[in-house]
Protein backbone atom coordinates (compact mmCIF):
# COMPACT_ATOMS: atom_id res chain seq x y z
CA UNK A 1 0.00 0.00 0.00
CA UNK A 2 1.27 3.39 -0.98
CA UNK A 3 1.75 6.09 1.63
CA UNK A 4 -0.39 9.06 0.86
CA UNK A 5 0.10 12.46 2.45
CA UNK A 6 -2.59 12.69 5.07
CA UNK A 7 -2.65 16.47 4.67
CA UNK A 8 -4.01 15.96 1.20
CA UNK A 9 -7.74 15.87 1.92
CA UNK A 10 -11.09 17.00 0.70
CA UNK A 11 -13.91 17.24 3.24
CA UNK A 12 -17.09 18.69 1.83
CA UNK A 13 -18.77 21.22 4.09
CA UNK A 14 -22.51 20.93 4.55
CA UNK A 15 -24.32 24.23 4.98
CA UNK A 16 -26.44 23.81 8.13
CA UNK A 17 -29.10 26.04 6.63
CA UNK A 18 -29.69 23.72 3.71
CA UNK A 19 -28.83 20.41 5.33
CA UNK A 20 -30.15 19.27 8.66
CA UNK A 21 -27.27 17.62 10.52
CA UNK A 22 -28.37 14.65 12.65
CA UNK A 23 -24.97 13.75 14.04
CA UNK A 24 -21.45 15.04 13.68
CA UNK A 25 -18.00 14.43 15.08
CA UNK A 26 -15.38 17.04 15.81
CA UNK A 27 -11.76 16.03 15.92
CA UNK A 28 -12.49 12.49 17.09
CA UNK A 29 -9.50 10.43 18.20
CA UNK A 30 -9.64 6.77 19.21
CA UNK A 31 -6.83 5.11 21.13
CA UNK A 32 -6.31 1.41 21.81
CA UNK A 33 -3.96 1.50 24.74
CA UNK A 34 -1.16 3.75 23.51
CA UNK A 35 -1.69 3.34 19.79
CA UNK A 36 -3.93 5.78 18.03
CA UNK A 37 -6.43 4.18 15.66
CA UNK A 38 -8.33 7.31 14.57
CA UNK A 39 -6.43 10.54 14.14
CA UNK A 40 -8.98 13.29 14.56
CA UNK A 41 -11.98 12.80 12.29
CA UNK A 42 -14.57 15.53 11.77
CA UNK A 43 -17.62 14.54 9.74
CA UNK A 44 -21.25 15.65 9.48
CA UNK A 45 -24.10 13.21 8.88
CA UNK A 46 -27.19 14.59 7.19
CA UNK A 47 -30.63 13.64 8.41
CA UNK A 48 -32.57 11.01 6.42
CA UNK A 49 -29.62 10.32 4.17
CA UNK A 50 -27.35 7.32 3.90
CA UNK A 51 -23.67 7.98 4.48
CA UNK A 52 -21.24 5.23 3.56
CA UNK A 53 -17.86 4.82 5.24
CA UNK A 54 -15.45 3.06 2.91
CA UNK A 55 -11.78 2.14 3.08
CA UNK A 56 -9.43 -0.80 3.21
CA UNK A 57 -9.50 -3.13 6.19
CA UNK A 58 -7.62 -1.57 9.07
CA UNK A 59 -8.47 1.93 7.84
CA UNK A 60 -10.43 2.60 11.03
CA UNK A 61 -13.90 2.88 9.53
CA UNK A 62 -15.46 0.30 11.86
CA UNK A 63 -13.64 1.69 14.88
CA UNK A 64 -14.98 5.13 14.02
CA UNK A 65 -18.52 3.82 13.58
CA UNK A 66 -18.44 1.95 16.86
CA UNK A 67 -17.41 5.07 18.74
CA UNK A 68 -20.45 6.96 17.45
CA UNK A 69 -22.74 5.18 19.92
CA UNK A 70 -19.88 4.50 22.28
CA UNK A 71 -19.73 0.73 21.78
CA UNK A 72 -15.97 1.07 22.24
CA UNK A 73 -16.59 1.94 25.89
CA UNK A 74 -16.84 -1.77 26.56
CA UNK A 75 -13.42 -2.64 25.21
CA UNK A 76 -10.84 -2.40 27.94
CA UNK A 77 -8.08 0.11 27.24
CA UNK A 78 -9.98 2.06 24.58
CA UNK A 79 -10.20 5.84 24.86
CA UNK A 80 -12.19 8.18 22.65
CA UNK A 81 -11.30 11.89 22.61
CA UNK A 82 -13.15 14.65 20.79
CA UNK A 83 -16.76 15.58 20.38
CA UNK A 84 -19.75 13.65 19.06
CA UNK A 85 -22.58 16.14 18.67
CA UNK A 86 -26.14 14.88 18.77
CA UNK A 87 -29.05 17.23 19.47
CA UNK A 88 -26.59 19.90 20.60
CA UNK A 89 -25.14 17.58 23.21
CA UNK A 90 -21.65 16.15 23.16
CA UNK A 91 -22.60 12.52 23.73
CA UNK A 92 -18.95 11.63 24.21
CA UNK A 93 -18.92 13.85 27.29
CA UNK A 94 -19.33 12.88 30.89
CA UNK A 95 -22.79 12.83 32.41
CA UNK A 96 -24.41 11.56 29.24
CA UNK A 97 -26.72 8.62 29.75
CA UNK A 98 -25.14 6.13 27.37
CA UNK A 99 -28.05 3.70 27.57
CA UNK A 100 -30.56 6.40 26.72
CA UNK A 101 -28.34 7.60 23.88
CA UNK A 102 -28.12 4.11 22.37
CA UNK A 103 -31.89 3.96 22.17
CA UNK A 104 -31.69 6.83 19.69
CA UNK A 105 -28.55 5.70 17.92
CA UNK A 106 -29.09 2.03 17.14
CA UNK A 107 -26.62 -0.39 15.66
CA UNK A 108 -26.57 -3.48 13.44
CA UNK A 109 -23.43 -5.59 13.41
CA UNK A 110 -21.36 -7.40 10.85
CA UNK A 111 -22.49 -10.86 11.88
CA UNK A 112 -26.19 -11.34 12.52
CA UNK A 113 -26.58 -11.65 16.29
CA UNK A 114 -30.19 -12.45 17.10
CA UNK A 115 -30.88 -13.51 20.67
CA UNK A 116 -31.60 -17.19 21.09
CA UNK A 117 -35.22 -16.32 21.70
CA UNK A 118 -38.27 -16.41 19.46
CA UNK A 119 -38.58 -13.99 16.54
CA UNK A 120 -41.31 -12.17 18.43
CA UNK A 121 -39.24 -11.87 21.60
CA UNK A 122 -36.19 -10.69 19.70
CA UNK A 123 -38.09 -7.59 18.62
CA UNK A 124 -40.13 -6.98 21.75
CA UNK A 125 -37.38 -7.72 24.27
CA UNK A 126 -35.93 -4.24 24.57
CA UNK A 127 -39.24 -2.34 24.20
CA UNK A 128 -40.67 -4.49 26.99
CA UNK A 129 -37.70 -3.67 29.22
CA UNK A 130 -38.49 -0.05 28.52
CA UNK A 131 -41.99 -0.37 29.84
CA UNK A 132 -44.18 -1.17 26.85
CA UNK A 133 -46.44 -3.87 28.26
CA UNK A 134 -49.53 -3.57 26.08
CA UNK A 135 -49.78 -6.73 23.99
CA UNK A 136 -51.54 -4.96 21.16
CA UNK A 137 -48.89 -2.28 20.91
CA UNK A 138 -46.19 -4.93 20.91
CA UNK A 139 -47.96 -7.00 18.24
CA UNK A 140 -48.20 -3.93 16.08
CA UNK A 141 -44.57 -3.08 16.66
CA UNK A 142 -43.51 -6.55 15.56
CA UNK A 143 -45.61 -6.33 12.41
CA UNK A 144 -44.50 -2.84 11.34
CA UNK A 145 -40.80 -3.39 12.02
CA UNK A 146 -40.77 -6.76 10.29
CA UNK A 147 -42.55 -5.20 7.33
CA UNK A 148 -40.02 -2.38 7.24
CA UNK A 149 -37.25 -4.95 7.30
CA UNK A 150 -38.95 -6.88 4.48
CA UNK A 151 -39.22 -10.00 6.60
CA UNK A 152 -42.88 -10.05 7.59
CA UNK A 153 -44.17 -12.16 4.73
CA UNK A 154 -41.62 -14.86 5.37
CA UNK A 155 -42.00 -15.19 9.11
CA UNK A 156 -45.48 -14.01 10.06
CA UNK A 157 -46.64 -17.58 10.70
CA UNK A 158 -43.65 -18.57 12.83
CA UNK A 159 -43.18 -15.63 15.14
CA UNK A 160 -42.89 -17.91 18.16
CA UNK A 161 -40.11 -19.97 16.64
CA UNK A 162 -36.46 -19.56 17.50
CA UNK A 163 -34.71 -16.79 15.60
CA UNK A 164 -31.70 -19.06 15.27
CA UNK A 165 -33.61 -21.24 12.81
CA UNK A 166 -33.71 -18.38 10.27
CA UNK A 167 -31.22 -18.08 7.41
CA UNK A 168 -28.31 -15.65 7.71
CA UNK A 169 -29.96 -12.99 5.57
CA UNK A 170 -33.23 -13.33 7.47
CA UNK A 171 -31.38 -13.11 10.77
CA UNK A 172 -29.69 -9.90 9.67
CA UNK A 173 -33.01 -8.37 8.65
CA UNK A 174 -34.43 -9.45 11.99
CA UNK A 175 -31.57 -7.58 13.65
CA UNK A 176 -32.47 -4.51 11.61
CA UNK A 177 -36.10 -4.89 12.66
CA UNK A 178 -34.99 -5.29 16.27
CA UNK A 179 -32.92 -2.11 16.02
CA UNK A 180 -35.70 -0.01 14.49
CA UNK A 181 -38.22 -1.30 17.02
CA UNK A 182 -36.50 1.10 19.42
CA UNK A 183 -37.57 3.92 17.05
CA UNK A 184 -34.06 5.33 16.82
CA UNK A 185 -33.06 8.53 15.04
CA UNK A 186 -29.91 7.10 13.62
CA UNK A 187 -29.00 3.62 12.52
CA UNK A 188 -25.36 2.55 12.45
CA UNK A 189 -24.58 -0.49 10.33
CA UNK A 190 -21.21 -2.22 10.49
CA UNK A 191 -20.76 -4.12 7.21
CA UNK A 192 -24.25 -5.59 7.60
CA UNK A 193 -24.08 -7.61 4.39
CA UNK A 194 -20.51 -8.89 4.49
CA UNK A 195 -21.52 -12.27 5.91
CA UNK A 196 -24.40 -12.72 3.49
CA UNK A 197 -24.88 -14.20 0.03
CA UNK A 198 -25.57 -11.88 -2.95
CA UNK A 199 -29.34 -12.36 -2.91
CA UNK A 200 -29.65 -11.65 0.80
CA UNK A 201 -27.34 -8.69 0.31
CA UNK A 202 -29.57 -7.11 -2.26
CA UNK A 203 -32.63 -7.63 -0.04
CA UNK A 204 -30.83 -5.94 2.84
CA UNK A 205 -29.87 -3.07 0.52
CA UNK A 206 -33.48 -2.63 -0.58
CA UNK A 207 -34.47 -2.61 3.06
CA UNK A 208 -31.98 0.14 3.83
CA UNK A 209 -33.15 2.28 0.93
CA UNK A 210 -36.73 2.03 2.10
CA UNK A 211 -35.69 2.93 5.66
CA UNK A 212 -34.02 6.13 4.52
CA UNK A 213 -37.28 8.07 4.71
CA UNK A 214 -37.43 7.65 8.47
CA UNK A 215 -33.87 7.10 9.62
CA UNK A 216 -30.46 8.64 9.28
CA UNK A 217 -28.23 5.77 8.23
CA UNK A 218 -24.46 5.44 8.53
CA UNK A 219 -23.08 2.29 6.99
CA UNK A 220 -19.59 0.83 6.93
CA UNK A 221 -18.94 -1.24 3.86
CA UNK A 222 -15.95 -2.70 2.08
CA UNK A 223 -18.08 -3.24 -0.97
CA UNK A 224 -17.74 -0.17 -3.18
CA UNK A 225 -20.58 -1.16 -5.49
CA UNK A 226 -22.81 -1.31 -2.46
CA UNK A 227 -21.74 2.14 -1.32
CA UNK A 228 -22.35 3.44 -4.82
CA UNK A 229 -25.80 1.85 -5.02
CA UNK A 230 -27.30 2.99 -1.78
CA UNK A 231 -25.48 5.95 -0.24
CA UNK A 232 -25.92 9.69 -0.63
CA UNK A 233 -22.58 10.63 0.91
CA UNK A 234 -19.35 8.70 1.11
CA UNK A 235 -16.37 9.14 3.40
CA UNK A 236 -13.11 7.48 2.44
CA UNK A 237 -11.00 6.27 5.39
CA UNK A 238 -7.30 5.65 5.10
CA UNK A 239 -5.03 4.69 8.01
CA UNK A 240 -7.22 6.34 10.61
CA UNK A 241 -7.90 9.52 8.64
CA UNK A 242 -10.77 10.59 6.41
CA UNK A 243 -9.11 11.68 3.20
CA UNK A 244 -12.23 12.47 1.23
CA UNK A 245 -15.84 13.18 2.09
CA UNK A 246 -18.30 14.20 -0.60
CA UNK A 247 -21.57 13.24 -2.20
CA UNK A 248 -21.27 9.66 -3.35
CA UNK A 249 -21.28 10.23 -7.10
CA UNK A 250 -18.37 12.64 -6.78
CA UNK A 251 -16.32 10.24 -4.71
CA UNK A 252 -16.74 7.45 -7.19
CA UNK A 253 -16.70 9.35 -10.48
CA UNK A 254 -14.65 12.49 -9.83
CA UNK A 255 -12.51 11.84 -6.76
CA UNK A 256 -10.44 14.85 -5.81
CA UNK A 257 -7.75 12.95 -3.94
CA UNK A 258 -5.26 10.54 -5.51
CA UNK A 259 -5.66 7.98 -2.72
CA UNK A 260 -9.41 7.87 -3.17
CA UNK A 261 -9.07 7.41 -6.88
CA UNK A 262 -6.62 4.57 -6.40
CA UNK A 263 -8.92 2.89 -3.91
CA UNK A 264 -12.20 3.20 -5.79
CA UNK A 265 -10.54 2.05 -8.98
CA UNK A 266 -9.35 -1.02 -7.14
CA UNK A 267 -5.60 -0.32 -7.07
CA UNK A 268 -5.40 -1.28 -3.40
CA UNK A 269 -7.68 -2.39 -0.61
Amino acid sequence: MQNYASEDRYIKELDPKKHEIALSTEDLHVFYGTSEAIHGVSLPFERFKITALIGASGSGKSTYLRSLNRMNDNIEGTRVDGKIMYRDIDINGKGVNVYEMRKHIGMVFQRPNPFSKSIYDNITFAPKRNGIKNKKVLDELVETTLKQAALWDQVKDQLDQSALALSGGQQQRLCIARAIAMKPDILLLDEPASALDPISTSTVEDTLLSLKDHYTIIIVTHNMQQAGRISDYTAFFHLGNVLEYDITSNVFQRPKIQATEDYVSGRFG
Partner: protein
Amino acid sequence: MDSKKWDKIATGVLYFIAGVMILILAFLLIFILWNGLPHVSWHFLTSPAKSFQSGGGIGIQLFNSFYLLILSMLISIPISIGAGIYLSEYAKKNWLTNLVRTSIDILSSLPSIVVGLFGFLVFSISAGLGFSILSGALALTVFNLPLLTRNVEESLRSISGSQREAGLALGLSKWETVLKIIIPEALPGIITGMILGAGRVFGEAAALIYTAGQSAPPLDFTNWNPFYIASPLNPLRPAETLAVHIWKINSEGIMPDASQVSAGASAVLIIAVLIFNFGARYVGNHIYRKMTGTK
Protein backbone atom coordinates in the same frame (compact mmCIF):
# COMPACT_ATOMS: atom_id res chain seq x y z
CA MET B 1 14.60 -55.00 19.51
CA ASP B 2 13.10 -53.08 16.64
CA SER B 3 10.79 -50.16 17.05
CA LYS B 4 7.74 -51.90 15.55
CA LYS B 5 7.86 -54.54 18.23
CA TRP B 6 8.13 -51.90 20.93
CA ASP B 7 5.16 -50.18 19.44
CA LYS B 8 3.10 -53.36 19.76
CA ILE B 9 4.22 -54.05 23.32
CA ALA B 10 3.52 -50.50 24.44
CA THR B 11 0.08 -50.55 22.87
CA GLY B 12 -0.67 -53.81 24.63
CA VAL B 13 0.38 -52.39 27.98
CA LEU B 14 -1.76 -49.31 27.47
CA TYR B 15 -4.81 -51.44 26.64
CA PHE B 16 -4.18 -53.42 29.80
CA ILE B 17 -3.94 -50.36 32.04
CA ALA B 18 -7.03 -48.76 30.53
CA GLY B 19 -8.79 -52.04 31.23
CA VAL B 20 -7.63 -51.93 34.86
CA MET B 21 -9.17 -48.47 35.18
CA ILE B 22 -12.53 -49.78 34.03
CA LEU B 23 -12.18 -52.80 36.32
CA ILE B 24 -11.57 -50.53 39.31
CA LEU B 25 -14.79 -48.64 38.71
CA ALA B 26 -16.66 -51.85 38.00
CA PHE B 27 -15.31 -53.39 41.19
CA LEU B 28 -16.24 -50.36 43.29
CA LEU B 29 -19.74 -50.14 41.89
CA ILE B 30 -20.40 -53.86 42.08
CA PHE B 31 -18.95 -54.15 45.56
CA ILE B 32 -21.05 -51.31 46.91
CA LEU B 33 -24.26 -52.18 45.14
CA TRP B 34 -23.89 -55.95 45.71
CA ASN B 35 -23.26 -55.55 49.41
CA GLY B 36 -25.42 -52.53 49.94
CA LEU B 37 -28.58 -52.96 47.92
CA PRO B 38 -29.84 -56.03 49.85
CA HIS B 39 -29.99 -53.78 52.93
CA VAL B 40 -31.81 -51.00 51.22
CA SER B 41 -35.49 -51.23 51.90
CA TRP B 42 -38.26 -48.76 52.54
CA HIS B 43 -37.80 -49.40 56.23
CA PHE B 44 -34.03 -48.73 55.97
CA LEU B 45 -34.60 -45.47 54.12
CA THR B 46 -37.19 -44.11 56.49
CA SER B 47 -36.45 -45.32 60.01
CA PRO B 48 -34.02 -43.64 62.44
CA ALA B 49 -30.58 -45.03 63.22
CA LYS B 50 -29.89 -47.20 66.28
CA SER B 51 -26.75 -47.61 68.30
CA PHE B 52 -25.77 -50.73 70.29
CA GLN B 53 -28.39 -52.73 68.39
CA SER B 54 -28.91 -53.69 64.81
CA GLY B 55 -31.78 -52.96 62.47
CA GLY B 56 -31.44 -49.20 62.39
CA GLY B 57 -32.10 -47.13 59.29
CA ILE B 58 -30.85 -43.94 57.76
CA GLY B 59 -34.11 -41.97 57.47
CA ILE B 60 -33.07 -38.91 59.43
CA GLN B 61 -29.59 -38.80 57.89
CA LEU B 62 -31.08 -38.97 54.42
CA PHE B 63 -33.45 -36.13 55.18
CA ASN B 64 -30.61 -34.12 56.73
CA SER B 65 -28.44 -34.61 53.66
CA PHE B 66 -31.12 -33.24 51.38
CA TYR B 67 -32.07 -30.38 53.66
CA LEU B 68 -28.45 -29.36 54.07
CA LEU B 69 -27.89 -29.63 50.35
CA ILE B 70 -30.85 -27.41 49.53
CA LEU B 71 -29.95 -24.83 52.16
CA SER B 72 -26.33 -24.60 51.08
CA MET B 73 -27.29 -24.37 47.41
CA LEU B 74 -29.75 -21.60 48.25
CA ILE B 75 -26.87 -19.63 49.75
CA SER B 76 -24.15 -20.51 47.28
CA ILE B 77 -26.02 -20.24 43.97
CA PRO B 78 -26.76 -16.50 44.16
CA ILE B 79 -23.28 -15.68 45.45
CA SER B 80 -21.56 -17.75 42.80
CA ILE B 81 -23.69 -16.25 40.04
CA GLY B 82 -22.92 -12.73 41.27
CA ALA B 83 -19.21 -13.44 41.53
CA GLY B 84 -19.18 -15.29 38.20
CA ILE B 85 -20.80 -12.28 36.53
CA TYR B 86 -18.26 -9.98 38.12
CA LEU B 87 -15.34 -12.06 36.89
CA SER B 88 -16.60 -12.57 33.37
CA GLU B 89 -18.20 -9.18 32.73
CA TYR B 90 -16.84 -6.49 35.01
CA ALA B 91 -13.39 -7.52 36.19
CA LYS B 92 -10.64 -5.44 34.63
CA LYS B 93 -7.11 -6.68 34.22
CA ASN B 94 -5.62 -5.34 37.43
CA TRP B 95 -4.26 -6.39 40.78
CA LEU B 96 -7.73 -6.61 42.33
CA THR B 97 -8.87 -9.17 39.79
CA ASN B 98 -5.65 -11.09 40.29
CA LEU B 99 -6.31 -11.12 44.03
CA VAL B 100 -9.83 -12.43 43.45
CA ARG B 101 -8.65 -15.16 41.10
CA THR B 102 -5.86 -16.21 43.43
CA SER B 103 -8.33 -16.34 46.32
CA ILE B 104 -10.68 -18.56 44.37
CA ASP B 105 -7.79 -20.81 43.34
CA ILE B 106 -6.64 -21.15 46.93
CA LEU B 107 -10.15 -21.75 48.24
CA SER B 108 -10.79 -24.48 45.69
CA SER B 109 -7.62 -26.31 46.66
CA LEU B 110 -8.10 -26.12 50.42
CA PRO B 111 -8.61 -29.50 52.06
CA SER B 112 -12.24 -29.82 53.06
CA ILE B 113 -11.26 -30.63 56.64
CA VAL B 114 -9.68 -27.17 56.88
CA VAL B 115 -12.90 -25.64 55.58
CA GLY B 116 -14.78 -27.68 58.16
CA LEU B 117 -12.53 -26.52 60.99
CA PHE B 118 -12.86 -22.91 59.87
CA GLY B 119 -16.63 -23.36 59.88
CA PHE B 120 -16.43 -24.92 63.34
CA LEU B 121 -14.43 -21.97 64.66
CA VAL B 122 -16.39 -19.18 62.98
CA PHE B 123 -19.94 -20.41 62.47
CA SER B 124 -20.35 -22.93 65.29
CA ILE B 125 -18.38 -21.19 68.02
CA SER B 126 -17.86 -17.49 67.28
CA ALA B 127 -21.25 -16.94 65.68
CA GLY B 128 -22.87 -19.18 68.26
CA LEU B 129 -24.67 -21.39 65.77
CA GLY B 130 -23.33 -24.54 67.43
CA PHE B 131 -23.47 -27.86 65.64
CA SER B 132 -26.32 -27.04 63.35
CA ILE B 133 -27.71 -27.33 59.86
CA LEU B 134 -26.98 -23.65 59.35
CA SER B 135 -23.29 -23.99 60.32
CA GLY B 136 -23.05 -26.99 58.03
CA ALA B 137 -24.76 -25.21 55.15
CA LEU B 138 -22.39 -22.26 55.50
CA ALA B 139 -19.35 -24.53 55.59
CA LEU B 140 -20.57 -26.36 52.50
CA THR B 141 -21.09 -22.99 50.84
CA VAL B 142 -17.46 -22.09 51.48
CA PHE B 143 -16.45 -25.49 50.15
CA ASN B 144 -18.59 -25.21 47.03
CA LEU B 145 -18.28 -21.52 46.09
CA PRO B 146 -15.01 -21.57 44.15
CA LEU B 147 -16.07 -24.35 41.79
CA LEU B 148 -19.55 -22.93 41.25
CA THR B 149 -18.14 -19.46 40.61
CA ARG B 150 -15.65 -20.76 38.08
CA ASN B 151 -18.35 -22.74 36.38
CA VAL B 152 -20.61 -19.67 36.11
CA GLU B 153 -17.73 -17.57 34.81
CA GLU B 154 -16.78 -20.13 32.17
CA SER B 155 -20.38 -20.65 31.10
CA LEU B 156 -20.84 -16.90 30.67
CA ARG B 157 -17.59 -16.55 28.78
CA SER B 158 -18.64 -19.24 26.35
CA ILE B 159 -21.44 -16.98 25.11
CA SER B 160 -20.32 -14.90 22.16
CA GLY B 161 -19.54 -11.23 22.75
CA SER B 162 -21.82 -10.32 19.87
CA GLN B 163 -24.79 -11.17 22.09
CA ARG B 164 -23.63 -8.63 24.63
CA GLU B 165 -23.19 -6.01 21.92
CA ALA B 166 -26.69 -6.73 20.67
CA GLY B 167 -28.13 -6.01 24.09
CA LEU B 168 -26.03 -2.91 24.69
CA ALA B 169 -26.83 -1.48 21.25
CA LEU B 170 -30.51 -1.61 22.19
CA GLY B 171 -29.89 0.70 25.11
CA LEU B 172 -29.91 -1.99 27.78
CA SER B 173 -27.45 -1.76 30.62
CA LYS B 174 -24.68 -4.30 30.86
CA TRP B 175 -26.33 -5.83 33.93
CA GLU B 176 -29.69 -6.19 32.18
CA THR B 177 -27.97 -7.70 29.16
CA VAL B 178 -26.14 -10.24 31.28
CA LEU B 179 -29.14 -11.08 33.42
CA LYS B 180 -31.76 -11.35 30.69
CA ILE B 181 -29.79 -12.42 27.64
CA ILE B 182 -26.43 -13.93 28.52
CA ILE B 183 -27.47 -15.94 31.59
CA PRO B 184 -30.46 -17.57 29.86
CA GLU B 185 -28.17 -18.60 27.02
CA ALA B 186 -25.51 -19.88 29.40
CA LEU B 187 -28.09 -21.76 31.46
CA PRO B 188 -27.32 -25.29 30.24
CA GLY B 189 -23.69 -24.96 31.35
CA ILE B 190 -24.57 -23.21 34.58
CA ILE B 191 -27.17 -25.79 35.57
CA THR B 192 -24.92 -28.72 34.70
CA GLY B 193 -22.25 -27.23 36.95
CA MET B 194 -24.72 -26.60 39.75
CA ILE B 195 -25.96 -30.19 39.70
CA LEU B 196 -22.42 -31.56 39.71
CA GLY B 197 -21.64 -29.22 42.60
CA ALA B 198 -24.71 -30.53 44.39
CA GLY B 199 -23.42 -34.07 43.92
CA ARG B 200 -20.10 -33.11 45.47
CA VAL B 201 -21.83 -31.45 48.40
CA PHE B 202 -24.10 -34.42 48.91
CA GLY B 203 -21.16 -36.75 49.49
CA GLU B 204 -19.04 -34.34 51.52
CA ALA B 205 -18.36 -35.30 55.11
CA ALA B 206 -15.09 -33.78 56.33
CA ALA B 207 -16.43 -30.24 56.17
CA LEU B 208 -19.47 -31.29 58.18
CA ILE B 209 -18.30 -33.36 61.13
CA TYR B 210 -17.53 -30.24 63.18
CA THR B 211 -20.19 -27.96 61.73
CA ALA B 212 -23.43 -29.85 61.17
CA GLY B 213 -22.33 -32.23 63.87
CA GLN B 214 -22.27 -36.00 64.29
CA SER B 215 -25.60 -36.59 65.91
CA ALA B 216 -29.06 -36.96 64.48
CA PRO B 217 -31.63 -36.25 67.17
CA PRO B 218 -35.06 -37.70 66.48
CA LEU B 219 -37.30 -35.55 64.34
CA ASP B 220 -41.00 -34.96 64.61
CA PHE B 221 -42.19 -35.18 61.03
CA THR B 222 -45.59 -33.84 61.98
CA ASN B 223 -44.37 -30.42 63.07
CA TRP B 224 -42.85 -28.35 60.26
CA ASN B 225 -42.57 -25.12 62.22
CA PRO B 226 -38.89 -24.22 61.72
CA PHE B 227 -38.65 -22.80 65.23
CA TYR B 228 -39.74 -25.99 66.96
CA ILE B 229 -36.73 -27.85 68.30
CA ALA B 230 -37.54 -31.26 66.80
CA SER B 231 -38.91 -29.85 63.57
CA PRO B 232 -37.26 -31.28 60.48
CA LEU B 233 -36.94 -27.72 59.17
CA ASN B 234 -35.28 -26.26 62.27
CA PRO B 235 -31.98 -24.91 60.90
CA LEU B 236 -30.37 -24.73 64.33
CA ARG B 237 -30.55 -28.41 65.23
CA PRO B 238 -27.54 -30.73 64.83
CA ALA B 239 -27.79 -32.80 61.71
CA GLU B 240 -25.62 -35.78 60.89
CA THR B 241 -25.75 -36.42 57.16
CA LEU B 242 -25.57 -39.72 55.32
CA ALA B 243 -21.88 -39.31 54.47
CA VAL B 244 -20.99 -38.34 58.04
CA HIS B 245 -23.03 -41.30 59.29
CA ILE B 246 -21.00 -43.75 57.23
CA TRP B 247 -17.77 -42.33 58.62
CA LYS B 248 -19.07 -42.21 62.17
CA ILE B 249 -20.41 -45.74 62.52
CA ASN B 250 -17.21 -47.09 61.02
CA SER B 251 -14.88 -45.22 63.31
CA GLU B 252 -16.91 -45.62 66.51
CA GLY B 253 -17.68 -49.27 66.24
CA ILE B 254 -20.62 -49.32 68.61
CA MET B 255 -23.15 -50.45 66.06
CA PRO B 256 -23.29 -54.23 65.67
CA ASP B 257 -24.41 -54.09 62.06
CA ALA B 258 -22.21 -51.14 61.15
CA SER B 259 -20.80 -52.72 58.03
CA GLN B 260 -24.24 -53.65 56.69
CA VAL B 261 -25.62 -50.21 57.44
CA SER B 262 -22.51 -48.63 55.87
CA ALA B 263 -22.88 -50.74 52.78
CA GLY B 264 -26.53 -49.82 52.46
CA ALA B 265 -25.84 -46.15 53.08
CA SER B 266 -22.92 -46.21 50.64
CA ALA B 267 -25.16 -47.75 48.02
CA VAL B 268 -27.69 -44.99 48.55
CA LEU B 269 -24.93 -42.38 48.35
CA ILE B 270 -23.52 -43.88 45.15
CA ILE B 271 -26.93 -44.06 43.56
CA ALA B 272 -27.47 -40.41 44.46
CA VAL B 273 -24.13 -39.52 42.87
CA LEU B 274 -25.05 -41.46 39.74
CA ILE B 275 -28.36 -39.64 39.58
CA PHE B 276 -26.66 -36.27 40.00
CA ASN B 277 -24.11 -37.14 37.32
CA PHE B 278 -26.54 -38.38 34.70
CA GLY B 279 -29.11 -35.81 35.75
CA ALA B 280 -26.62 -33.01 35.11
CA ARG B 281 -25.96 -34.27 31.63
CA TYR B 282 -29.59 -34.89 30.81
CA VAL B 283 -30.91 -31.60 32.18
CA GLY B 284 -28.12 -29.62 30.51
CA ASN B 285 -28.77 -31.17 27.11
CA HIS B 286 -32.50 -30.86 27.53
CA ILE B 287 -32.42 -27.13 28.28
CA TYR B 288 -29.92 -26.57 25.49
CA ARG B 289 -32.16 -28.29 22.97
CA LYS B 290 -35.21 -26.46 24.20
CA MET B 291 -33.54 -23.08 24.01
CA THR B 292 -31.94 -23.37 20.63
CA GLY B 293 -35.16 -24.76 19.19
CA THR B 294 -33.50 -27.84 17.71
CA LYS B 295 -35.75 -30.77 18.33
